[in-house]
């Protein structure tokens, strides 16, 4: 923003505040802040439009703070940190907070909506067309603000409203199809007009016109504003008592603490709503006998997978880096480029290719390297684990090759020369000088790689899809499932029964585990730095 160097300004005055000369610094800042404010206002207006108040107030807060930060004199450090803080808040803190919130609910199959929506759905599902009810051509009519339905029953035009059951109207006429064309005292509302007015249209689909004083006869209802049929509801919603009552059987359905409507005869309504169930999801993961065992196995394999992947690919990458760092190797550039290839290829495509190549009957691995033997790489639990590790090694060692090559080339040559003069052998030099120095720069990357592989969904999903399934478990998890793919399976996105609450709880656990492991590991790497 401020690269000009011409005028020697007082050191305390920043370029962006200065008015000397044309004042470019300030103008640029002003323009940028105008842009930020415009974007912020657009967001606020959009949030207002869709009535998302939390987003609105957070945006207002962030915008006010942004203006304060960049126009106040004393907020120099914040000027640098603020954008990062905003992104942290939006992309990290919010997502984690929301996941933690879902983890305390039973959101999932059967508990998919809030209470009001569940009641709406229960009423929809309960309202049935009276058997044998004909469909009547319908005219929607109105008198001021009161909407009514006009139908011709046996040639007699009758009009009714929500409060007023159908009653004949004198002087009303209907056309040949039975559609009322003129109703004295009422204005006929055309379908076109209804279509142009969303609120009115919704009112038309919402009202029920009783056929007679007797509620058992049912009420007229329309879906398309041009025909009506007689429907009957048996459920009645009592908003104050929050109960649904079946008027036919007298059963009263009360919501239980899991958001299911349970009748006093023990029956349940199909649709439920989500409620806060506290920490039950967290305890379920460790105490539920169906989940606890398999999840423990999955956790153990996740740790093993993440550790072995990082260790094996690091060592292989380091080995090649050492070899290709030797001055005697020719065509280094070409060879190094070739090494990068597996890394440059999209990981999911590689995994899919390997899946095909490892196929027991048609795969080239068996045909070319094992004399056509029938080795079921992806079907046997241990072979599948090995295959996953091997493919991931193939995918990730080029990364370590790159990193180690870079690190090796930046090692100070004095220390190695000094060691040579002291008479150290090659192995001794590697062990005492090269390797420790290398670890200083690569250990943090190894920790990041561990965290990444701990959640390496792609390779599992594409290569084995978690399989082969545990044969001794009662939940659909498999031998190569990582915690993250187990969470995906449990969340039901793939088509099974969804349990987002449990999946979120497990996500929070994974987050905490990865956090702790990384924190401990980073502390350890501090010790490495002391070598320098």
């Amino acid at each position, binding site marked *: 923003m401020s690269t000009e160097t011409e005028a020697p300004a007082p050191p305390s005055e920043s370029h962006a505040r200065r008015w000397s000369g044309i004042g470019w610094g300030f103008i640029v800042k002003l323009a940028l802040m105008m842009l930020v404010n415009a974007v912020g206002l657009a967001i606020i207006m959009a949030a207002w439009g869709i009535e998302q108040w*939390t987003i609105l107030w957070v945006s207002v807060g962030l915008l006010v703070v942004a203006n304060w930060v960049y126009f106040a004199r004393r907020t120099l450090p914040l000027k640098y940190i603020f954008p990062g803080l905003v992104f942290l808040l939006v992309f990290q803190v919010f997502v984690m907070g929301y996941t933690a919130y879902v983890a305390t609910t039973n959101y999932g*199959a059967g508990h998919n909506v809030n209470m009001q929506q569940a009641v709406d*759905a229960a009423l929809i599902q309960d309202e049935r067309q009276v058997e044998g009810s004909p469909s009547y051509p319908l005219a929607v009519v109105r008198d001021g603000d009161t909407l009514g339905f006009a139908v011709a029953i046996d040639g007699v035009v009758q009009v009714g409203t929500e409060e007023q059951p159908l009653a004949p109207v004198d002087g009303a006429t209907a056309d040949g199809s039975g559609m009322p064309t003129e109703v004295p005292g009422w204005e006929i509302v055309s379908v076109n007009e209804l279509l142009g007015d969303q609120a009115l249209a919704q009112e038309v*689909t919402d009202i029920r016109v009783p056929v007679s004083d007797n509620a058992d006869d049912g009420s007229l209802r329309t879906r*398309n504003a041009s025909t009506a049929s007689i429907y009957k509801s048996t459920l009645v919603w009592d908003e104050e008592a929050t109960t649904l009552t079946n008027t036919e059987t007298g059963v009263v359905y009360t919501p239980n603490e899991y958001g299911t409507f349970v009748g006093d005869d023990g029956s349940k309504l199909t*649709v439920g709503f989500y409620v806060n169930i506290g920490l039950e999801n967290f305890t379920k993961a460790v105490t539920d006998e169906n989940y606890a065992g398999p999840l423990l196995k999955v956790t153990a394999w996740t740790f093993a997978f993440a550790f072995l992947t990082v260790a094996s690919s690091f060592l292989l990458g380091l080995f090649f880096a050492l070899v290709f760092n030797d001055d005697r190797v020719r065509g280094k550039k070409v060879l190094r480029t070739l090494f990068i290839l597996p890394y440059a290829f999209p990981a999911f495509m590689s995994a899919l290719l390997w899946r095909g190549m490892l196929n027991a009957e048609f795969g080239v691995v068996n045909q070319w390297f094992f004399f056509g033997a029938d080795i079921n790489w992806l*079907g046997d639990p241990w072979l599948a684990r090995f295959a996953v590790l091997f493919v991931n090694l193939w995918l990730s060692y080029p990364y370590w090759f790159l990193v180690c090559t870079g690190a090796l080339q930046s090692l100070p040559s004095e220390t190695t020369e000094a060691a040579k003069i002291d008479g150290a052998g090659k192995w001794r030099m590697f062990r005492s000088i090269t390797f420790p120095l290398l670890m200083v720069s690569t250990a943090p990357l190894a920790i990041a790689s561990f965290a990444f592989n701990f959640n390496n969904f792609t390779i599992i999903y594409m290569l084995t*899809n978690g399989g*082969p399934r545990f044969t001794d478990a009662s939940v659909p998890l498999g031998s190569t499932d990582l915690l993250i793919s187990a969470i995906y399976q449990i969340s039901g996105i793939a088509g099974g029964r969804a349990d987002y609450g449990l999946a979120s709880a497990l996500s929070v656990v994974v987050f905490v585990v990865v956090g702790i492991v990384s924190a401990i590991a980073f502390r350890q790497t501090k010790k490495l730095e002391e070598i320098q």
Partner: protein
Amino acid sequence: MRTKIGIGAALATSALLLTACSGGGDSTTSESASSSPSASASASETSEAIDATGQTLTIWVDENRQPAVEAAAATFEEETGATVELVQKNFEDIRADFLAQVPTGEGPDITIGAHDWLGALIEGGVVNTVDLGDNADMFSQVAVDAMTYDGQLYGMPYSTEAIALIQNTDLVGSDAPATWDDMIQMGVDSGADRPFCINTNGETGDGYTAYPLQMSFGAPVFVQEGGSYTSEVGMGGDAGDAFAQFLYDNGEKGTGYISTTIDYDTNNQLFNSGECAFTIQGPWALGSYTDVNFTVNPVPSAGGEDASPFVGVQGFYVSSQSENALLANIFLSDYIATPDAMQALYDADPRLPAFEGVDTASAPYPDAIAGFQASAEMGVPMPSIPEMGSVWDFWNAAESAIIKGSDPTETWDKMITDLTAALEG
């Protein structure tokens, strides 16, 4: 609409992200999120308007059916002035997304869907009931029944589909084999590498494709009572064990006709290269069989009873939270449930029509369509009860294990036990 989204997204990424997150969901939120302000704004227009100009109907479709729905939508837009916003999604994603988005108010007014989602959608409280309109009589009864749940109609069907036996006519002629043994004999006599191959979805297992064989042993996935399914698992007991034994006998430790090394693509490749005389597949796979002559017949019985495949029905669902319910219903009953629209749907994506009078001669494989029709006629509807969602994982995995050589009775019975427990819990 699209450009508006583009600009909005570029300017206000973080806000959209926040909206998307609060919607508990995914990328599609931004689509409908930005459509709602315009929809609610137009609602306040004067009631003097004589058409539906300014109203937006959002419909989720998948890639295959987008052109078909587009045609119907164009007529609708022309005649009513309303805007139809088609959002293209992966068919597999629609179920979960519809369940997640409708409660947040960001869902569509109408979505395309399969009838076996119905139980889950009802349990999730996201679908409304529908009327078929004036042409109700022209819908096939099986399809309407499939979209009916507990006596209520929740979807407008438009196509049905079922798998059938596809045979290489150059190898085995076009006569339908009567039994499994006949078929294997015909296959062996033809000299093909494999008399029969079937997709098991690799190691995952595929209970759907093997279902006709299972049904021929009299082991339905759920017990049927008066046409509709109960939540009582029906594939246990002797019938189920007999089927498990059949899988084992023809699995990798038996004759090897059924193998977990074969997935969808491998299966199609084997059949198309003539290495395989018979296979069981659906109409969607026909496009892969360009190099061989084939004919389609019902699946032969392996266990003595009818080999009934699952019949799947596709149709349109209306959201229970739609603010345009009237418009949505009019669109369906007046612009989809018409002979012209149904024909257009068929031409764009030829699946067995669920509507009388659709001319199927225009299909790429008219004879094959007849074969699939015959297979569908002896089929059973795929259960749409919510419990079905839990079945697949257990069922597929057990079949895969048995084909690979696990003890059939033990594996199958354990699957039944676990499944029953999962359904109760």
